[in-house]
């Protein structure tokens, strides 16, 4: 077993250890054992940093990959398939190692931060336990080498997010939110599961590499449509987890959870897992599937941005910006800007975590005041928070010199290139939405900064009963904060902010503040070659299938590749760009066009961002236009945005009410129809009954019941024959004999 693998196993299990210790013994430990959580995560981070060093810095190989697996379920010699084993395994490649250190780092910081933020909560220890199980499952997603394993950890992060969202379970709203989150994710998971099943049913394996190899070898027996379906279904998993439209509704509500949780799970890591997963299965996505993904991403980015501009709750604004940014990433994958969107994933993780922790600091300082309308003027009280928060905001808005700028522009450039390659038209909608959302992002972030940090404090403006209510809602949680003045938070909450803010500056990723492609990241994360071929008619499925997929260890290595002798101009061109050879011309073209569109993207987006910030200033800083008046002027639009496009209401009315209604109907059906085809009949029988009604109460239902009914009625009739008068008996005797006689007589005579 490779030493890195052993190390990664240790990293994987450490958080689980912390969970086990804390869930059982936290009440027996000093400080409810928070130091255990922090310490363990610190260790995990150091170890993963070592892995990062080994993989990225030492190896410095785009195709770096070590894998290991073991047999988990052995189904023996299955008829028609042969020996069948379901394996579990670990794979470490560049992206995995990067994500590994990212997740452990943020998780560590959040642990640290929580020691301050959650101090005094009555379930303090359990909180760290939950963080532990979450980190464990998240690392599992990153490390696992097959679809089955990733599905397992997928569900597990779902669980931990369920537990953490509902951490203040005394609040009905929290309980609702956690249920909503879990169910929405389940809906996505169904799709993901079906996608997995489609692939498994063809190859009888869950392992990525084997699936890719089989696909490349053209072993996929079903139609190409099934393959597209598989892609889209798998993507549904991402839709659920990464809160893409139409399953985005759970994420804003998830802000009911403690703020560190929002930072860790619902901004930085878990929600990004969807993107990570799509990246993992990128090579099986057919162009059609990619188009769907691109449009979903673009639409989500836009919709979320429009909602974010009108929200009052500081965390909700951030939540919707998260949705929007995830939209960017998905869009990036859809348009084939693979490395760019993964890049954005990482950068976003850091600055969004920073933003959330910052907002957490603010909320903490404001005694759980979350409404930006009652904030303001905090920059003086909380300088550290102010600086870091602003820095992260700039990164989110995507101003030059920030990490966000690099990644976002790479995505947008890819979008433009994609539109060109796909032949314009409707496809230009995608970059357009992208840029427009960029402007909106800049706008609402500017608004937030201003409302929170500038101007005068508006705490006193808050209606009292509202305050009271808000106070209650937290139950015992904030009892130990007596109301004294706002002040900067302690070091253990400040340090994470600083670290994360530092990580959202450009030089961490790329020497060139304007081009992320020059950075180590995008060099280490090249776009993998597809194994499903392009949609071009002249380049059919089979043809693409036999082409070599460079870092797919598969039987097709040996296949001689006509395209590979440098005869393919596209290939040559793209290789000139220092990328590896793309077997699929479409991919190559997109990447090529993306590079071409790089500077266009920079210009447009910079303009957009400045425009956005400018607008924000016009509205809030200089007060040239009164936001309230504007809101009134475009009231329908305002309401539409403020009410989040009414998605919740729509779902409530259709799916939730619908299924509850169906449930009620079916259960009525069950008791009244299936159970008693004859409960009605039983009442009839009761009329016949001569005994105390307990008799026919027992008349059984369903089929038996029907018999019982006929039986009883016939019985009721027949017993009348027994008149008790002997003469009647005799008469009947004679009649019977006579009847028989006539019967047989007729049979003989005729």
């Amino acid at each position, binding site marked *: 077993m490779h030493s890195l693998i052993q190390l990664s196993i240790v990293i994987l299990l450490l958080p689980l250890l912390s969970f086990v210790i804390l869930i059982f013994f936290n009440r027996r430990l000093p400080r409810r054992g928070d130091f255990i959580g922090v310490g363990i995560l610190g260790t995990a981070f150091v170890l993963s940093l070592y892995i990062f060093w080994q993989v990225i810095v030492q190896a410095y190989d785009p195709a770096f990959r070590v894998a290991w697996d073991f047999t988990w379920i052995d189904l023996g010699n299955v008829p028609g398939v042969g020996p069948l084993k379901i394996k579990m395994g670990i794979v470490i490649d560049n992206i995995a190692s990067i994500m590994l250190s990212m997740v452990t780092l943020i998780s560590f910081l959040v642990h640290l931060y929580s020691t301050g933020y959650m101090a005094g909560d009555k379930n303090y220890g359990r909180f760290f336990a939950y963080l532990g199980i979450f980190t464990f499952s998240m690392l599992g997603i990153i490390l696992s080498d097959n679809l089955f394993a990733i599905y397992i950890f997928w569900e597990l992060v779902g669980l931990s997010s369920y537990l953490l969202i509902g951490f203040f379970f005394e609040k009905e709203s929290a309980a609702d939110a956690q249920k909503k989150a879990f169910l929405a994710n389940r809906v996505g998971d169904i799709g993901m599961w079906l996608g997995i099943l489609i692939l498994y049913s063809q190859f009888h394996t869950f392992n990525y590499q084997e699936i890719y190899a089989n696909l490349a070898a053209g072993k996929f027996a079903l139609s190409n449509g099934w393959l597209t379906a598989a892609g889209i279904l798998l993507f549904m998993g991402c839709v659920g987890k990464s809160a893409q439209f139409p399953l985005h509704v759970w994420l804003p509500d998830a802000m009911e959870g403690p703020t560190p949780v929002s930072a860790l799970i619902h901004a930085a890591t878990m929600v990004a897992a969807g993107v990570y997963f799509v990246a993992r299965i990128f090579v099986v996505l057919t162009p059609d599937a990619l188009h769907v993904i691109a449009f979903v991403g673009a639409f989500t980015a836009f919709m979320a941005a429009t909602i974010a501009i009108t929200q009052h709750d500081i965390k909700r604004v951030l939540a919707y910006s998260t949705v929007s940014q995830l939209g960017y990433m998905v869009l990036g994958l859809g348009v084939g800007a693979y490395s760019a969107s993964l890049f954005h994933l990482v950068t976003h993780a850091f600055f969004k975590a920073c933003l959330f922790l910052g907002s957490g600091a603010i909320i903490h300082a404001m005694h759980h005041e979350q409404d930006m309308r009652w904030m303001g003027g905090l920059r003086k009280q909380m300088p550290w928070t102010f600086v870091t928060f602003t820095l992260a905001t700039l990164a989110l808005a995507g101003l030059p010199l920030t990490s966000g700028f690099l990644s976002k522009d790479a995505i947008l450039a890819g979008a433009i290139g994609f539109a060109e390659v796909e032949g314009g038209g409707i496809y230009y909608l995608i970059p357009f939405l992208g840029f427009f959302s960029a402007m909106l992002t800049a706008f609402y972030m500017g608004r937030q900064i201003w409302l929170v940090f500038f101007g005068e404090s508006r705490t006193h403006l808050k209606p009292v009963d509202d305050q009271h209510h808000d106070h209650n809602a937290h139950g015992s949680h904030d009892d130990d904060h007596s109301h004294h003045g706002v002040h900067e938070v302690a070091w253990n909450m400040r340090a994470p902010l600083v670290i994360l803010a530092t990580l959202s500056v450009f030089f961490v990723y790329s020497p060139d503040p304007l081009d992320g492609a020059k950075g180590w990241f995008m060099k280490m994360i090249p776009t993998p070659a597809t194994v499903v071929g392009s949609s071009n008619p002249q380049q059919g499925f089979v043809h693409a299938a036999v082409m070599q997929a460079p870092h797919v260890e598969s039987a097709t290595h040996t296949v001689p590749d006509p395209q590979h002798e440098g005869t393919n101009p596209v290939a040559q061109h793209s290789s000139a760009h220092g990328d590896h050879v793309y077997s699929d011309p479409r991919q190559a073209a997109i990447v090529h066009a993306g590079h071409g569109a790089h500077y266009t993207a920079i210009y447009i987006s910079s303009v957009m961002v400045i425009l956005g910030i400018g607008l924000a200033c016009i509205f809030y800083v200089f007060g040239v236009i009164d936001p309230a008046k504007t809101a009134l002027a475009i009231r329908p639009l305002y309401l539409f945005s403020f009410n989040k496009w009414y998605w919740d209401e729509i779902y409530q009315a259709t799916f939730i009410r619908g299924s509850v209604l169906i449930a009620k109907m079916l259960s009525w059906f069950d008791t009244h129809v299936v159970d008693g085809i004859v409960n009605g009949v039983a009442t009839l029988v009761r009329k016949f009954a001569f005994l105390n009604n307990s008799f026919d109460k027992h008349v059984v239902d369903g089929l038996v019941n029907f018999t019982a009914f006929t039986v009883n009625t016939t*019985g009721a009739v*027949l017993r009348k*024959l027994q008149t008790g008068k002997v003469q009647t*008996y005799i008469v009947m005797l004679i009649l019977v004999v006579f009847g028989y006689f006539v019967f047989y*007589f007729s049979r003989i005579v005729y």
Partner: protein
Amino acid sequence: MFELPSGAEIQSIIASLKASVGFFIPEIYLSVLFMLLIVIDLVTKSKKNILLSLITLSGLTGSLFFIYQQHSLQSSEFFFGMYVLDEFALFFKYFFVLSGMLAVVVTMADDQFDREVKSIGEYYALIVSMVIGMIMMASSQDLLMIFLSMELVSFTAYILTGYFKKNQRSSEAALKYLIYGAVSSGLMVYGFSLLYGLTAQTNLIKIGIELAATGADKSLVMMLASLLIITGFGYKIGAVPFHFWAPDVYEGAPTPITAYLSVASKAAGFALLMRFFYVAIPHSTATLSSIVGIDWVTLLMILSVASMIYGNVVALWQKNVKRLLAYSSIAHAGYLLLGLIVMGKFGTQATLFYLLSYFLVNFGAFYVVILIANKTGSENLDDYKGLGKTMPVAGAALTVFLVSLVGLPPTVGFIGKLMIFSALLAKGSVYLWLAFIGIMTSVISLYYYMLIPLNMYLREPQQATGKAMNTGIVPKVIMSVLMALTIYFGLFFTSLSDFSKYSSSLFGIVLQ
């Protein structure tokens, strides 16, 4: 009009009579016992005394010895073919003697006799005479003999039914039984006369030969004859539509007699029916209807299906346990007929086995009913509430017997049903529908049988008399023994089955 026989002929007649008597010892012995009982009753003018019961019991036990002796004898006919001795007859001899003994035991347990009856002696004598009659029914091979034995049984049955002279129901039952019985046996004997007219024979074997030869061209009369004869037999086995007497009689008669009738005289009817059906009706040749005006198998099918359905269905409505059991016994007649319809050795074996199981279980059930009636003074379902607690042993026993009546394993009743249905299915799928009806009706039967445990265990008594009703040690032992046997034979039934197979061979006919 006819000339006297010559001396030589008389000599030979006397010789054959002498020979015949050797085959007739059990019957003679029982007749002696019968008179002995009368005499003892006359000398000891006391109320129901234990002495008579014991004498009867020991007497009947003694008869078993003589019956056992007869196994050594070659199966043959005697008294000029009027009377046969074969395994089949032996089976029923045991059967009837044992049921007679059980009837005595049950009677001893019944307190009602103390209240109702002045002298018990002739009662036992009548039981014995009924045993004799039934034995003769099982062994007779001549229309005349059949008629005589049947009437002997019937008359004793009438008297026994009405034995509680002060009791309205008892007497009413007797009257109904009498009238119904008289009419149907009258019709039967008219049928006999027609049969005699057709074949000029009264011996069943000869009749069979005669019919096989010349039955076809007289089919119309033969049809009427068969119908009338079936009437008589049907009345004896209490099968629908000749069952009307049964419920009233079973309800009105003294419970021991009810048990006795529902088991023994029904069995006697079956013995008769089987012998007549197998021997006198030639079924070796292809289609019965082509020979004898009427298709006996179809006729029996109708009887059996009607009995199974009617008995079980109407039983659902009974609230008097004795009456409920009466209807159930009608239903069981239907199941028994199924085995007859198969009309082969297997079928006979199944029927005999079923009779054995029914014998055991039904007596058990009635025994418990009597014990309960002794304590509660009632046979109504409602008065059974909560008996499971107050009379645990009785409750358990009754439950086991009822389960066996339903035909659930591991009880002997289940094996009985199993045998019957196996016999049907062994014929392939032709009789499957009969088996189906049998199955369905037995599901229905579960319902009303279970009403009794339901009342005993699942319900609380209305008047809260939590006092345990002690039945005494002897009844407990008897119940436990019967219960144990019911289950034992349900698990290890080889002996019973082999016995019934051994007994399923009749004289003068080879069943395949």
